[in-house]
């Protein structure tokens, strides 16, 4: 276990592109948090007349209790950056053929996949940590209420967020194992996760009235529901539903089994 962790770290430690992309991720992450507040304040000021009462109240985007779900939803865009990191680091092993030499040297295919899984877990935990830090920071800065009870309330969105990222990155790993070429894998991954499935799901839902909560991207995105309609007094799911968690666990299991099966049956 520690050996596999060390192995992955040795591979990534001096790989500049990895750290640059990861650095960009952290910078964007915090930047989004800060700019969102600015942009909303500016928007409210500009539209004082039309929005009247809202503007006076301000939108309590970063108030505790709400902040965890709001931030977790807002920063969901960044999971693609992490997915690129995963795809690049796996496809590089195929294009350099280093996976081949790893296996020849006496690593098992399962250990190889496990080493990538450890990286994915580390990235998901990093994202969770950033969410925690950003939430605490923005919350303590802007929230009306700052008592520990309120801070801790709704914090289950952080583990849910970690699960969301973890599952999404496992899907990215599956694409990398199937396609093996960095450019192709990234393009097809974006195409599937951001276009093909969302559009397909929309058609299913609005044209044919077929439920589609079980599709992989829908399931992953469903973990944390869009919170913002509540500021227009609409009902939203402001908790993490167990059934959503189970569906995502199911998909994650499928991604991992498929990844392993592909790695096992293909020639390297």
């Amino acid at each position, binding site marked *: 276990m520690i*050996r596999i962790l*060390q*192995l992955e770290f*040795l*591979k990534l430690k*001096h*790989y*500049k592109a990895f750290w640059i992309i990861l650095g960009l991720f952290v910078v964007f992450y915090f930047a989004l948090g800060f700019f969102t507040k600015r942009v909303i304040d500016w928007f409210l000021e500009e539209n004082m007349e039309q929005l009247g009462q809202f503007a006076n109240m301000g939108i309590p985007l970063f108030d505790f209790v709400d902040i965890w779900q709001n931030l977790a939803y807002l920063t969901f865009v960044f999971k693609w950056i992490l997915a690129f990191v995963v795809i690049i680091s796996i496809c590089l092993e195929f294009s*350099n*053929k*280093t996976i*081949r*030499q*790893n*296996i*020849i*040297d*006496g*690593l*098992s295919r399962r250990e190889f996949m496990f080493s990538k899984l450890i990286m994915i877990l580390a990235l998901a935990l990093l994202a969770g940590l950033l969410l925690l830090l950003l939430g605490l920071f923005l919350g303590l800065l802007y929230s009306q209420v700052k008592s520990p009870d309120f801070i801790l309330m709704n914090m289950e969105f952080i583990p849910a967020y970690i699960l969301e990222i973890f599952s999404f990155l496992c899907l990215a790993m599956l694409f990398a194992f199937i396609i093996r070429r960095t450019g192709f894998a990234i393009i097809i991954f974006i195409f599937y996760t951001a276009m093909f499935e969302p559009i397909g799901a929309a058609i299913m839902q609005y044209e044919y009235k077929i439920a589609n909560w079980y599709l992989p991207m829908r399931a992953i995105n469903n973990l944390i529901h869009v919170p913002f309609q509540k500021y227009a007094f609409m009902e939203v799911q402001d908790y993490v539903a167990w059934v959503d968690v189970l569906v995502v666990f199911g998909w994650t299991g499928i991604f991992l089994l498929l990844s392993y099966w592909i790695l096992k*049956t*293909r*020639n*390297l």
Partner: protein
Amino acid sequence: MILETQGLTKRFGRITAVDSLDLEVRQGQVYGLLGPNGSGKTTTLGMILGVTNKTGGSYSWFEKGEDYRLRKQVGAILEHPIFYPYLSAMQNLRITALIKEIEKPDYAHALKMVGLYERRNDRFSTYSLGMKQRLAIASSMLSDPGVLIFDEPTNGLDPQGIAEIRNIILEIRGMGKTILLASHLLDEVQKVCTHFAVLRNGKRIFAGEVDAVLNKKNRIEIGCADLEKAKHILSNDQRVLHIEHANGYLVTEVDPLLTTQEINRIMMDQGVILSHLVFKRSNLEEQFLAILKESDD
């Protein structure tokens, strides 16, 4: 027994790349796997090293089976040297040591052996092909394995690079290690190996000792005034296997027991004075072509 394969088979669709291959490599042998390009050498090595999934048959390392952990006691390079291009030689060797679970890796010794110690902190991508190949040998030697596998180790190298690699392999042979060497170069196998097998279209068409094959038949060229009489004398000797005329000489294939002195003496006794008597050590290339020809028939 270091390595044994039984009926090892690999099919890619309709093509059979390796066809029920039986091999036996024993402790201390330098085993040449000889065959033209596309004869299934690399596919065979890929299967016994776990990167190519076999279609049928079995292999066994150290009489213990196919477990991936057994590969940690094998040093192997398949085709090109493969390393992380953005890492230095040292960093790459650390990865090898970690995978092979080497307790106290002696990086300096391995790097000095192949003459790369001075360049150990340079990135792999800055190396020449010869240096890359040498680093691959250093990496395969790092765990001090009992058996090494080299696949076309001199492919694409300049004459100096070829000489360097051959010397390193001979040095490794001198350490008493078992070596499995795949090559399409007969000359290479002849110079380095003790045993060899010939592959063609995925089938083993020959296996044996290099020395036995080399010494099975010697060729002796004979010239004299009366070739027919000499031919008559020789054809009565059981140690002479074959006689033919070529370029005004008699070209004979003889048992290694029949030496040139012996022939000279026999001829003298019969009153034939030889003007030309040349011993030609048979080389593997001719044997190889003969083996290929036999398999065609």
